[in-house]
């Protein structure tokens, strides 16, 4: 027996245009660009050399990114979403699995920046996981997809889109680094503006998205919320514990945690929109990526406050000199 509210839910027309409008997609691309530019303006080649010289952060990041996150998404789907009727659960689960399989998001860099973590490590981890995603995202999708959707057709993973995103991600970083090399002043202003606009646009997107999708939000069953919120929240904590367990420097452990938990929401949305363009369940597939993108901002903000206090407390306190 299907409970009555769910029947209504399945009959509700979830229009993909409502979930993510083209305007919001463009804004997100612009946002990523501005933020990455600002981040680049705060980096030197020396920072990257350091991250490579101490590769443990990168290795653990790779393991959490493509080992833990997809597994977490899989377990959450099995444990929660699959209690719901399959007609609803399957397309939503597809979005959830994709969300767990995409590489780290650029917003993790912003949160790392605000939490006074290791920004260079964060950027290099994002780059690293994005490069690996070309290989790893299809592999984990197929791996878990076979279990979750034994009957459905295989998905096409749009490698080209991922490559484009990677370029989008790296160009402004390099641009920022070059500008900063020639003018520390302009670099510092870019860095400030990037952080400011990044924050502003995130708040703007959330403030406009939530009221417009109020009906969708109130109709969505709690299991979906658990998956959407849990993916980021548990991801952060598991990665943090793991990083601490292998005795990573606490600041780097916090960076790895944020990096792991914060997935590339915009990329997942873009993949869904481009790959399942004519799919009848497109609206449902979009739900988890959209909800995840919304809640990760809230979760990451809270975690950032906590991490920032810890990072600041660990900062060397020296007395006034002379």
């Amino acid at each position, binding site marked *: 027996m299907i409970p009555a509210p769910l029947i209504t839910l399945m009959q509700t027309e979830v229009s993909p245009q409502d979930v993510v409008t083209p305007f919001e997609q463009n804004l997100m691309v612009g946002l990523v660009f501005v933020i990455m530019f600002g981040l680049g303006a705060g980096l*030197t080649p*020396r920072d990257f*050399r*350091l991250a490579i*010289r101490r590769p443990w952060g990168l290795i653990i990041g790779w393991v959490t990114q493509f080992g833990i996150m997809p597994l977490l998404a899989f377990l959450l789907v099995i444990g929660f979403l699959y209690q719901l009727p399959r007609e609803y659960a399957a397309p939503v689960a597809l979005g959830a699995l994709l969300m767990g399989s995409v590489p780290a998001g650029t917003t993790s860099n912003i949160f790392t920046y605000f939490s006074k973590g290791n920004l260079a490590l964060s950027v290099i981890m994002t780059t690293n996981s994005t490069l690996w995603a070309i290989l790893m995202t299809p592999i984990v999708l197929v791996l878990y997809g076979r279990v979750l959707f034994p009957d459905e057709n295989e998905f096409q993973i749009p490698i080209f889109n991922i490559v484009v995103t990677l370029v989008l991600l790296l160009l402004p970083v390099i641009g920022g680094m070059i500008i*900063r090399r020639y003018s*520390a*002043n302009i*670099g*510092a*202003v870019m*860095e*400030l503006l990037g952080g400011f606009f990044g924050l502003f646009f995130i708040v703007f997107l959330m403030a406009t998205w939530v009221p417009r999708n109020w009906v969708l939000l109130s109709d969505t069953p709690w299991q979906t919320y658990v998956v959407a919120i849990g993916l980021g929240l548990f991801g952060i904590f598991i990665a943090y514990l793991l990083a601490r367990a292998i005795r990573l*420097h606490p600041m780097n452990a916090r960076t790895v945690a944020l990096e792991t938990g914060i997935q590339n929401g915009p990329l997942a949305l873009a993949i869904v929109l481009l790959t399942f363009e004519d799919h009848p369940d497109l609206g449902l597939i979009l739900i988890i990526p959209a909800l995840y993108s919304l809640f990760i901002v809230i979760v990451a903000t809270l975690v950032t406050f906590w991490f920032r206090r810890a990072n600041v407390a660990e*900062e*060397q*306190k*020296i*007395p*006034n*000199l*002379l």
Partner: protein
Amino acid sequence: MTTRPWLSHYSSGVDPDLAPPAFAHLPALVKASSAEYAKTIAFTQCMPNGMNGSLTYAQVDELSDDFAAYLREVVGLAQGDRVAVQMPNCLSYPIVAFGIMKAGCVLVNTNPLYTAPEMAYQFADSGAKALVVVDMFANRLPDVLAKTSIETVIAVKISEFFPPVIAGVIRLVQKLWTRSLPKITVEHEAFRKVLAQGRAAKSANAAEGYLIGVGHDTVAALQYTGGTTGVSKGAMLSHGNLVFNTLQMISMCGVYMRPGKEIVVTALPLYHIFAFTVNLLGFYHIGARNILVPTPRPPSNLKRVLENYKVTWLSGVNTLFNALLNERWFTDSPPKHLVASAAGGMALHESVASRWREVTGTPIVEGYGLTESSPVLTFNPLGGMGKDGTIGIPVPSTEVRCVDDSGATLPVGEAGELVARGPQVMLGYWQREDETAETLKDGWLHTGDIAQMDSDGYFTIVDRKKDMILVSGFNVYPNEVEEQIGAVAGVLEVGVIGVPDERTGEKVRAFVVASTPPPTEASIIAYCKEHLAAYKAPQSVTFVEDIPKSPIGKILRRELRAQVLADSTTKGQA
């Protein structure tokens, strides 16, 4: 004539007796370098996020001329009038300091960390008629000015002389984010306007006139210090003192200070005599680029400085070098172009020195001096034989010896008070003849430090005669702290001593005999922080039954220290 076994240890080319300098006063020294290096960048101020502004030698020269003209023509100050300066390291500092000297006035450096009563005391004691203050600290002035003879207040922005947009961003951040710009309620002039007025009023003839009669024996600065007694007083440093000490210091560094090629980080505050003479005067004289860091706290503030500039020299105190060695970004990629580093202000720990050499691959040498000696008295010769743990050998034209209580010179290896004579020794304390007579005897400066000399002529400090506590190079006088703690309700008796501390060299610890109800440790520390500069407040308070005292009731700090030492060894054994 004393024996000078150190003479054979000077680096080659060092004249043990400096020829009389060609400069009659500091403005002449400044003018000479300004002309020689006119187009070169003299100062760059670097903020923690990398924002920066710069001034060339020619600009510094011209702007300080403007400021001198303002002080004399617009304010109407006369030769010898005191001008107090209270600001962190910023581009305005050299303009103000050089301008005051060019005007024939006397610079009174003031620690910006001072509380209102400390400021009032120093301004009143020096008789300062004008004050140049950074706007961030100007909110303390209403309580202060009435108790002083200051008539003119000039407010300086930290972002002065930055490119306009950058300056605007910094102001905005200060206003909205850090909220570090209090409203200035006293009457004041803006620094930029002041310079414009000076520019309009200045003339070359008049500028020469400001310095008629100014020579080596004319007071250039009143540098406040507690000296050996703890009462804050102004050491009168003459133009000759500062010119000589600048040249003495440079000669000890020999080929390591290459004219026109050095980039030096000034992370220590310029209001302190160490950075003032070594960085501001010394490196200006050799045409270096000085990177001014407003505050090195936290030490990560220096990250951008070391990334963005090819730093060749670093001057600092043990605390700073140690802090940098504890920063990963620093040890992972130490400055590539570094030539040498100089430590002063407090003892440089041997472990820090050897780690510094290991990490940077460059020499670090320790020097020694006092505010009263402008400050450099001894220095380990760079390129010559340096000895860790020693304060090195006397700089040229300087005699140093260890004496017993009767004033007789002690043989090699025997510890006694270190006394010194040379052209850098102050004229005396400002309006304190008794204290001057106690410190300067027959031209010999009595430092109050107990030292011994080895057969090579290297000196080692073994103890301090006085009870002064040295926190990161800051002098803290137990008397002053005890006086404040004594005023806390519930405190019967108090003794303050310094105990060893890994980071700051020493830290302040108070021993208190309390009545009932007893005050809490936190309340005592909070009270001290309210009435004293933060570094003077005790780090911890120990409540005790009684405090060791002499028969006439004088607190025996020596015994308190012995108790602490005994406690720590028993704890170590347990």
